[in-house]
């Protein structure tokens, strides 16, 4: 084969492989877009102003909403952030500093194992820990379950991102006579902050859609909850309840609620990204 | 010069420089030798040959200067290498001057042609040989990196200075005795002066060798003071 035709051959191979890669990428996008399309197509009909402001109505009554489920989800996610982020970030800091010690290795291993535990198991765990003892489903319990699910992700993300911060910055700060703890928080964590924030947002987005653990913890509520220690409605549980019911009316409510949930998660994701891009500039 | 350079090219450049200097030193030594022999034997052919060889020595000086400047620019030598290169920059001038002085002796010898029976003191011959030995030993000291020998050479300079000074009254008496020989005797003084200058340059050379080997500048220092007290060797 002479050089010229060999060159043509290689160019052809290059084109074919590139085409295959593009095809694979498009195929991967098919489920994502079909889900988005399906949810939008089926859910949009159920969306109305009352849907966001009204409580759910019994079967047969028109114009019910999921207002309590939306605020419930926001409450649960808020509580999860409160319970999950500080210990998660601090554990990540610990791992980045002392990850090579015996205890550090145990912590990291536990975090990795925990991130593989099915969320329903965590729901049962919080159920027996909190719900059984207080004899009460509550927002606290739901928030705690979600926090436990977030914890390993937040920890490992923080650790990995802190590791990406150049050691030179730590030395620079220590060399200026800055104490170790201050160096870690004000220089290392501060530099890694945009990345850590993204990691946290993604973890939040993930738990916002959790259903199984909430069935045992925050349960559900058709009315406004009287406080954080009462059963609380949430979008995923509401969707689940409506979807498994035999009523056509509730099915369309479920689709609408699903659309709201997807929009919520998408907003969180986009917000995370915008926030990061803004910070970097 | 101790161990080899890690950079072979650098080592080769230093070796090449060294060889050029040794070649130049050898040529200059030949010139001095030839001049003395021409004076002794009145050999005008030899004298002419010595004069012509001078341009070769001049060329070597230019070439070696160039090599040294290149070395300084490209290698930034330090310590013994720096002393080696700077020493060479200085001694090529001395070597070239020695060559010039040998040439000027030869010119006088050529002018002496046609006065075969004239006064030709053997003292001048002895002085010339002493100066030639200084040049030879200084070059040997350079080759061997022998500071002791170099010191010894520089001490011999005084003797030649004395001989040159002592030569004046002798010539003066001759001038009184035979005023007709004035031109001839002036040439004798000129030769004596040239020999004395050759010894001076050989001394410079020797002193630079001491600097090159020990890193100490011994010029314009009275050597009777013990030198080595400060340096443990």
């Amino acid at each position, binding site marked *: 084969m002479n050089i010229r035709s060999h060159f043509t051959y290689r160019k052809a191979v290059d084109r074919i492989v590139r085409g295959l890669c593009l095809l694979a990428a498009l195929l991967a996008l098919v489920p994502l877009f079909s889900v988005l399309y399906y949810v939008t197509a089926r859910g949009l009909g159920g969306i109305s102003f009352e849907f966001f402001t009204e409580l759910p109505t019994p079967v047969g009554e028109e114009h019910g909403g999921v207002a309590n489920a939306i605020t419930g989800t926001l409450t649960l996610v808020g509580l999860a952030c409160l319970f999950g982020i500080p210990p998660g970030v601090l554990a990540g800091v610990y791992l980045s500093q002392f990850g*090579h010690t015996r205890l550090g290795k145990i912590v990291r291993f536990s975090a990795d194992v925990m991130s593989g535990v099915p969320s329903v198991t965590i729901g049962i765990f919080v159920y027996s820990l909190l719900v059984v003892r207080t004899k009460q489903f509550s927002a606290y319990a739901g928030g705690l379950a979600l926090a436990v699910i977030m914890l390993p992700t937040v920890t490992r993300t923080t650790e990995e991102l802190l590791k990406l911060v*150049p050691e*030179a*910055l730590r*030395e*620079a*700060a*220590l*060399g*200026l*006579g*800055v*104490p170790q703890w*201050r*160096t870690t928080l*004000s*220089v290392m964590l*501060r*530099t890694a*902050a945009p990345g850590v924030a993204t990691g946290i947002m993604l973890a939040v987005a993930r738990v916002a859609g959790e259903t199984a653990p909430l069935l045992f913890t925050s349960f559900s509520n058709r009315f406004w909850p009287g406080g954080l220690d009462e059963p609380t409605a949430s979008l995923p549980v509401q969707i689940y309840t409506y979807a498994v019911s035999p009523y056509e009316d509730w099915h369309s409510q479920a689709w609408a609620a699903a659309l709201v949930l997807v929009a919520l998660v998408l907003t969180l994701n986009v917000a995370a990204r915008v926030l990061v891009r803004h910070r970097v500039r | 010069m*101790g*161990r*080899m*350079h*890690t*950079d072979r090219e*650098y080592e080769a450049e230093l070796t090449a420089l060294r060889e050029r200097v040794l070649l130049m030193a050898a040529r200059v030594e030949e010139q001095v030798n030839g001049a003395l022999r021409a004076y002794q034997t009145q050999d005008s052919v030899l004298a002419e040959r010595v004069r012509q060889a001078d341009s070769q020595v001049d060329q070597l000086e230019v070439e070696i200067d160039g090599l040294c400047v290149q070395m300084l620019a490209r290698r*930034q*030598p*330090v*310590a*013994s*290498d*720096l*002393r080696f290169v700077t020493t060479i920059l200085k001694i090529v001038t001395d070597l070239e001057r020695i060559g010039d002085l040998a040439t000027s002796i030869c010119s006088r010898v050529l002018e002496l042609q046609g006065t075969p029976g004239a006064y030709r003191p053997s003292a001048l011959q002895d002085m010339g040989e002493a100066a030639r030995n200084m040049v030879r030993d200084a070059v040997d000291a350079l080759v061997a990196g022998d500071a002791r020998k170099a010191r010894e050479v520089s001490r011999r300079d005084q003797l030649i200075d004395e001989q040159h000074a002592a030569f004046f009254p002798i010539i003066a008496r001759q001038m009184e005795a035979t005023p007709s020989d004035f031109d001839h005797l002036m040439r004798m003084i000129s030769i004596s002066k040239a020999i004395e200058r050759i010894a001076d340059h050989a001394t410079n050379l020797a002193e630079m060798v001491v600097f090159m080997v*020990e*890193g*100490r500048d011994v010029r314009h220092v009275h050597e009777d003071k013990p030198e080595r007290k400060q*340096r*443990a060797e």
Partner: protein
Amino acid sequence: MSTTNSVVASGSVSGAPWGSDAHLQVVPPPPSLGALGAMVEPLHESAKMSAVGLRASFGAREILKGISIPLYEKHVTAIIGPSGCGKSTFIRCLNRMHEVVSGATSVGQVHLDGQDIFSMDPVRLRRRVGMVFQKPNPFPTMSIRDNVLAGLRLNGLKVAEPDALVERALRQVALWDEVKDGIHRSGLSLSGGQQQRLCIARTLAMEPEVILMDEPCSALDPIATARVEELIHELKKDYTIVIVTHNMQQAARVADYTAFFYMGELIEHDRTDVIFTRPAQQRTEDYITGRFG
């Protein structure tokens, strides 16, 4: 082979009680050289810092094997030597940055104004003994101005007139005119040489007494290097400077004193002009002329 050299009285390096500096024989001050003497001022010199029998290790590996050396006040001391000779470890011992790495230990004494640094609070020590690193490392999240103030702010110290301080520090490193119109830009927007000068300004803002520089020009181009070297000449009027360098010409250019380290030992320490024209030790000679290994 014993390592007698011109600084350390022979035999006193190891085994001797490290109680005082008495056995540190001081290199005589350079003679006045007239116009040429600008390089080494004929000052009365005292040691701002001195190491006495300093040993340092990483785990079981001993990096420094008993270093004793004075570092003269308001002079530049360069540390040269092949990679792995312990020169970086040495200057990191001087502000106790060595022990920050886990498994790193050190034994012996280092004095700062006669006081043993190992009995000081490392944080306070590092405010007095500042450090500039190999790679310029401005804080990426901070502006140029905030970088200069970083040391003070992160230490929780109140800055009375921050603007004046920033300007003074940046003028000291000859960066002010180049950045004064964009003082709130990120430190990373500067060129490598400017970043390094910013890092030096950041160190100067802490008003240290000693500045340690660990190969400060190895990431810079020749012009940026010349700027930093000029700066070192300026700074030594007020500060004691110790610079580690791989570049022997740089040591020859900026340092008043040069120390040659080899395999964790101090082989020779003397005035720079002496080291580069007639070193006393064969190993120094071999290293600086390139006849090593």
